[in-house]
């Protein structure tokens, strides 16, 4: 399991897989979000390990 903190603070769980696939599974667009683990960004090709905690940062602003 991978734990994903969403931009609104909620936490989702998903299977281990590549960041690219996690973004798709969450219904997000790779151009609209950054994914971080701790203080490092992860590129879409990275395979996330079991029990990893990652964070989705939305970069799209509305104003």
């Amino acid at each position, binding site marked *: 399991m991978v734990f994903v903190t969403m*931009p609104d603070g909620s936490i989702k769980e998903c299977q281990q897989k590549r960041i690219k696939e996690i973004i798709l599974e969450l219904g997000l*667009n*790779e*151009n*609209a*979000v*950054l994914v*971080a683990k701790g203080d*490092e*960004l*992860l*590129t*879409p*090709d*990275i395979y996330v390990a079991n029990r990893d905690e990652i964070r989705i*940062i*939305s*970069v*799209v*602003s*509305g*104003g």
Partner: protein
Amino acid sequence: MKCRKCGERALISLRRHNAGFCKEHFNEFFVRQVEKAIKKYEMFDYSDKIMVCISGGKDSLVLWYLLHKMGFDTTGMYVNLGIGEYSEKSLEKVKAFSEKHGLKSIIVNLTQLGHPITLMEKRVKRTACAICGTTKRHYFNKVAHENNFDIVATGHNLDDEAARLLGNTMRWYPEYLGKMSPALSADSQIKKKVKPLIRLTELEVGAYAFMNGIYYIADECPKSVGATSMIYKNALNTLETEMPGTKHYFYSEFVKNVAHKFEREETEKKEMHICSICGIESFLEVCTFCKMLEKIK
């Protein structure tokens, strides 16, 4: 994925450039894009006094920080809108940010001036965003004019401008399509309005903020719910995923080859007046902002 320059692990993948970068080389790429925009669109040089319009969001803070770092004479201009907690938080961010990085700032506080957006919204029959837009423009123009700034810079990025272009194209607004250039010699009271982040996407600006510890206000203004710009941004991101580079192509080719067709001839331009109340340029004898304020008194 490895950094294109040094082979270290990449922290960001830029599909439209077919490249990945580590922090050091992403920062280098980022600065180069800003330098290119400044040069290509003849935005400004080291002798200019630049006012950067600050909202507290990532784009304006990144622009302010970077132009200062690059050695330009910059001052941040922030309008505190008086929209509840959102405005309080963004004011704190802006103050902390300018202190941390030793940046010059000018702050206009609408609550202290007696007309926060929330009050204006009750008295004026327009949407909050329309009121807010007019009000911010008024103070940006006023402060720029009174303090003799040569340049007014905003943090609009490629996504903002491509989305605006798409919106204006969908509705064929010739008036607005003629004003899509990233460097506009706007009114005579302000020499030039520029968008130095125009070659960078929202994702790239967000990544730069993240990697360089620029903590911006991630909360959206509560009034932005349902903004149509989001629909256009999402549509463009869908296209960009399938065809990397689309946003840049759509916007930059428009500016290069098409925008001039929508620009008005000098003779067609509406005559400008000086508002008889505030002294700022306007198409009207009394500007829209001053007319709104009359309703508050």
